[in-house]
């Protein structure tokens, strides 16, 4: 028996004043065990609902997705049957999918870079105390709280070449914008502008994540840096940036996940056009337009794997453990 007991419970004082182990009956032993096991169960009970939710709504469907991606599951061509890697092979031969791979890579590169570059200075600014700081944070979070479809519709009015905000401003200021077409004509410009809308949405969360990391940095470090003659820029490079790396890494990972799964903004702003269609849009078309769920599962799986791989790379490159 490995369990230790408190003096009053497990040990008796002998007549010589020494403590000797108390003789236990089997009933005593089980009571002790019950007393000991009750508090052990509590944490499991507390997290059980979340675990069940995650298993039921994420892991089990994810498992099904993995399995079904190796099957032909086509509502117009029943029954479902094992087809090995056929779904994956078909995807690689689908020009719409291969074109979307390139588009999605651009979304990820532009989105992650831009949201991080914008979020770091914004977080640094918000770290300093100023009047109305809470209000600014509340305003900042608004784009993140808006649904992507709403943002897409909102920005349609800005980018619309037939009298949108930008073309109207250009016209008022007598500036030439060529044909005035911002979306749909040039692939890189279209993707950059659409991703700008998503960056507007995801940057607030990045700011908050980095701000949380900045607030853990002790003020003494900045004082020490100042004593050593470091100016604001040197303090930022040598104190702020290295110590904010955990927050920056988490912010970049959320940006990677969001940009890999971009759907609403290109769907609303550019329709199904191959100039800017993303991989998740192709998943939608394959699954719910063509009803070829097997290929849809396979593409979902590929997106999930790619997201995980890039996220791991980002964490390995950017994340550094900080001990203060």
């Amino acid at each position: 028996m490995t369990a230790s007991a408190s003096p009053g419970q497990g040990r008796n004082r002998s007549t010589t004043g020494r403590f000797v182990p108390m003789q236990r009956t089997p009933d005593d032993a089980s009571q002790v065990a019950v007393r000991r096991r009750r508090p052990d169960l509590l944490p499991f009970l507390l997290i059980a609902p979340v675990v069940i939710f995650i298993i039921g709504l994420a892991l089990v469907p994810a498992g099904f997705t993995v399995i079904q991606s190796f099957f032909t599951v086509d509502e117009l061509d029943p029954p479902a049957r094992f087809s090995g890697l056929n779904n994956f092979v078909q995807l690689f031969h689908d020009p719409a999918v291969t074109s979307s791979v390139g588009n999605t890579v651009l979304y990820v590169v532009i989105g992650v870079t831009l949201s991080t570059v914008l979020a770091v200075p914004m977080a640094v600014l918000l770290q300093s105390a100023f009047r109305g700081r809470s209000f600014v944070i509340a305003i900042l979070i608004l784009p993140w709280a808006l649904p992507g479809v709403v943002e897409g519709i909102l920005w349609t009015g800005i980018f619309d070449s037939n009298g949108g905000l930008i073309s109207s401003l250009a016209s008022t200021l007598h500036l030439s914008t060529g044909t005035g077409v911002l979306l749909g004509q040039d692939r890189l410009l279209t993707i950059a502008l659409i991703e700008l809308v998503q960056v507007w949405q995801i940057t607030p969360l990045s700011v908050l994540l980095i701000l949380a990391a900045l607030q853990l940095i002790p003020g003494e470090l900045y004082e020490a840096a100042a004593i050593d003659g470091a100016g604001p820029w040197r303090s930022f490079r040598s104190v702020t940036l290295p110590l904010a790396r955990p927050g920056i890494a988490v912010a970049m990972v959320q940006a990677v996940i969001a940009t890999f799964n971009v759907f609403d903004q290109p769907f609303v702003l550019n329709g199904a056009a191959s100039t800017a269609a993303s991989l998740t849009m192709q998943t939608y078309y394959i699954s719910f337009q063509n009803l070829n769920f097997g290929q849809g599962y396979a593409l979902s799986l590929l997106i999930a794997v790619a997201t995980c791989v890039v996220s791991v790379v980002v964490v390995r490159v950017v994340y550094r453990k900080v001990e203060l």
Partner: protein
Amino acid sequence: MRTIHGRSPASTRSARMLAAVAGVVLVTSACGGSTASSSGSGQTTGVTITVALAADPPPAAVLAAFTQQSGITVNWVNIDWDSLQTKISAAATAKTFFADATDVDWSRVGQLGKLGWFVPMEKYIDTAATKADVPQLSSFTSDGHVVGVPYDASFMVTTVNEDLFTRAGITAMPKTMTEYTSALKQLKSKGVSQYPLNIPFAAAEGLSTYWYQTTNAFGGTVLDGTGKPQFTDPGSAGYQAAAWMVDAMKTGLVPPGNINVTDSQGEQTLMAKGQVATTFSDYSGVVGVLYNDKTQSSVPSKTQYLPTPGVDRPTVNLSNPDGIGIPKEAKYPDAAAKFIQWFTSAQTQQDFAGLSGPSKTWSAYTLPSHLSAVQKLATAGGLAQGQVLADLLKTSKPVFAGGAPTWYPKFSNAVYTNLHAAATGSMSTDQAIKAIAAVAVSLSSGS
């Protein structure tokens, strides 16, 4: 023997059993629950049915009157069209209840007919008798079964801003494609309209239907009865239609920004604001509900329907109506059928269209699917250019004579993505036509 840290075989068995049960429960729930009955209740009174359509509900008083007369309460759910199609597919695939009555779009009739996701409506409605007064019912027939019943009469029409045409000196409205194209050039050259023509070139369904109507105007069809493409020859109607549309963009007849304009955006921001003079393939009813509405339009009473120009005379119009049907997993299919009978009746449609006063008028409603209802509206003067619409409706025909093919959504995707690409200049019209044809050949051959 029990130990404190170990487990007895009995408890291990229990734990395994529990885990197994939990696993089965989770797997079942993850599969979406395939235990829903495919034959719902026959109850038709004292029930609440869910009706899911991409529209705001009809007036509450009208629905309340239906409840009073039938004992059926209607729970109306407004879901945008794209989400609605996704939900219909997801629910039918998982064999779960989604709604008792929902949208059946003309373009998905072939697909839905083959899948058997909807209850055949001939079980509830005398389709042969209905067809005489509802000509567009044929658009909802697949393999001899009626998948849904049209609740409005949507068909493609040509709309013109008569004021702009007159200012450009065009007194006789064009009857042929040649005359129509000349009129467009005249509108531009006279400086009356910088960009006279609205073509919604966004890569969306509206671009496909525009091409079908234009192909029809050039005297042909897109696919034959077996689904083979009829537009690959440069002399074919489909090829000429695509070239005409793309050239209109390249020669400045269409606003450059239309690359990303959808059909509804074009109606609201271009035609209704007088920025363009005409839309070749517009929607029936739009003059009354949008262009003549002073709250949304700056050109009230200035637009009109034009019998769609053809090769040597005006051509017929293609229909793209909205229908309503009963999913196989409906809880109360018989009650839903009663609702559909009422909802698609000529009397209810007249009420929706405004013939019985504003309290029964449904603002989202465009045009009755019953010829008799349209005729009554036209006679009563309650419909903008009612007689013109009634005449066009009589001769309107389905886009695909044999019903939309099962693979229509994929084909349409190829149409609008490639025509969009041709309009942007990233591929030629010829390349776009070849790409669309390749998809059609592949799909129609079953590969």
